[in-house]
């Protein structure tokens, strides 16, 4: 009797169902392409020191504002630093900030949304009103306002971007939990006397995970754009640390002389965001056929 499981797990999927998602995802070339782009960006950022002979910070004025050549594939910036090297290292900042911010938003917003969806009542009302107010601001503007008062810098950048995406995560998590909380297997767990946190962790969350995974991927695209925008405005990483948005801003003054220093980091942002967008769309199609983009 003592061994009776206190939580009824979400219903097991049929064998064919279990493989349906990954197969659909891999056979859809767009989602696969997105995955390749994202993995390439992560690889480039992680192994930057092994992929380039140059340093991202050391100045080399004699080589400034060069076009692409065999020694500098994407040219150099106004201080003679290799643009490709700075893009690789800049990926650490852009991907790191975006990843941390989305993780923050997922933990805070996701938890709030799960609580709101599971308990309903006044908990739901309070959390959703706070979410409404957060969503009443244009996202980038709220981030700018937060940084105006917190001060520029990477930690504050993560906090600001994390806070602006808390609201969307709360909404998605709440909606996902509400669709499963009335299911029989959740009710069965409850009637077996299981504690709320066990029900949420072991029964509700696994069933509500798909929309959250899709949301994480698509939010990463937004977060990279937000990080780039704020760094472009000088509110993110501070020199000499390279970040893609700041590189675009720095190169802009020399646009007529050497467009490469601006265009290359701009393209890097675009390609990585495209990767996350494709990956997110592919995951959505594979994980939740009801949401399949037509």
């Amino acid at each position, binding site marked *: 009797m003592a061994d009776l499981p206190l939580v009824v797990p979400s219903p097991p999927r049929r064998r064919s169902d279990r493989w349906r998602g990954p197969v659909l995802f891999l056979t859809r070339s767009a989602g696969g392409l997105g995955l390749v782009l994202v993995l390439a960006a992560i690889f480039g950022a992680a192994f930057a020191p092994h992929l380039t002979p140059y340093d991202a910070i050391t100045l080399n004025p004699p080589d400034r504002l060069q076009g692409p050549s065999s020694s500098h594939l994407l040219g150099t910036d106004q201080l003679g630093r290799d643009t490709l090297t700075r893009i690789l290292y800049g990926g650490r900042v852009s991907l790191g900030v975006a990843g941390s911010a989305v993780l923050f938003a997922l933990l805070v917003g996701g938890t709030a949304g799960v609580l709101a969806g599971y308990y309903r009542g006044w908990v739901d009302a309070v959390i959703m009103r706070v979410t409404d*107010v957060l969503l009443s601001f244009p996202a980038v503007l709220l981030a*700018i*306002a937060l940084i105006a008062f917190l001060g520029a810098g990477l930690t504050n950048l993560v906090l600001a971007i994390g806070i602006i995406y808390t609201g969307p995560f709360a909404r998605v998590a709440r909606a996902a939990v509400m669709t499963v909380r009335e299911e029989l297997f959740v009710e069965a767990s409850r009637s077996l006397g299981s504690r709320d946190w066990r029900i949420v962790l072991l029964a509700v969350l696994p069933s509500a995970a798909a929309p959250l995974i899709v949301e994480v991927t698509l939010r990463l695209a937004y977060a990279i754009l937000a990080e780039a925008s704020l760094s472009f405005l000088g509110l993110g990483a501070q020199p000499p640390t390279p970040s893609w948005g700041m590189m675009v801003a720095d190169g802009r003054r020399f646009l007529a002389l050497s467009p490469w220093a601006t265009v290359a980091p701009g393209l890097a942002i675009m390609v990585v965001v495209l990767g996350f967008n494709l990956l997110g769309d592919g995951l959505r199609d594979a994980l939740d056929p009801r949401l399949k983009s037509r």
Partner: protein
Amino acid sequence: MLVFLGRRIVLTVPSLLGVAVIVFLLMRFIPGDVVTGLVGDAQDISPERLAELRRMFGLDLPVHVQFGQWITAALQGDLGSSIRTGRSVALDLSLRFPVTLQLTTMSLLIALALAFPIGVMAARYRGRWPDYLGSAFVLIGLSIPNFFLGILLILLFSLQLGWLPPAGYVPFAESPVENLRRMVLPSLSLGLILAAATARIMRSTMLEVLGRDYVRTARAKGLTERTVTLRHALRNALIPVVTVVGLQFGSLLGGAVIIEQVFSLPGIGRYALEGINLRDYPMVQGAVLVIAAAFVLVNLLVDVIYALIDPRVRYG
């Protein structure tokens, strides 16, 4: 309709109040209040003088009293004065508002003018080359940062072709032609990206509507494909599009902050950034409040338009 409108307006009040509370709290609770900003790094100022300054700005009062005073003044159009210049923030914002309004309006028009045909054609020719071209436009538009698109447009149209000026602003009243020449590139930078988001939703709703029974009936009774698409499907497909455009308006306002910086346009967004660089909090607070309030009011407007297009909304 009046009941719907009344209820919707009442619901807007808590949002506006919430926005005001957040803007106020940001101002009050994060290290470095107005006085610290004013004094800057001056080391020789005595604690007594600091306390006196705080009293002068009303910072010694309880927070709820401060909020009451601030919101009452704000409702009367008094957003305080810039610490650096002493000018009225409300006056400054009223001078800059037309620039941001023109930028966002022109961007919205560009977005709608492009999104409708792209979305409709992609749906009508699903799986063929207009659809693929449309999808490529959407994917690139959703992935390119607006400031980078702005710079690419400057590179092409100003530096390479020499057709348009790269930056700067001329008031419309001074020279309408020069004003438009300088607003085209900034508006395109925001409008093309909004067009991508709108075309995407336009395509998917058109596809949904084109599969409905009444569209099949319209086809069956011998109407041309053009009539079916434009007169029967499009109107119903517009409903979700209006919502998305409304929601995207927020990103347009946020984007304006960045694009005004790229093209040196003296709008509200640039005003906020100037405030940040000068650590002039009343400037930032006023600009953020005005933009956020505009966003909330636009969402109200969207709901009203929504109700006008779709009677189910107001009677539901």
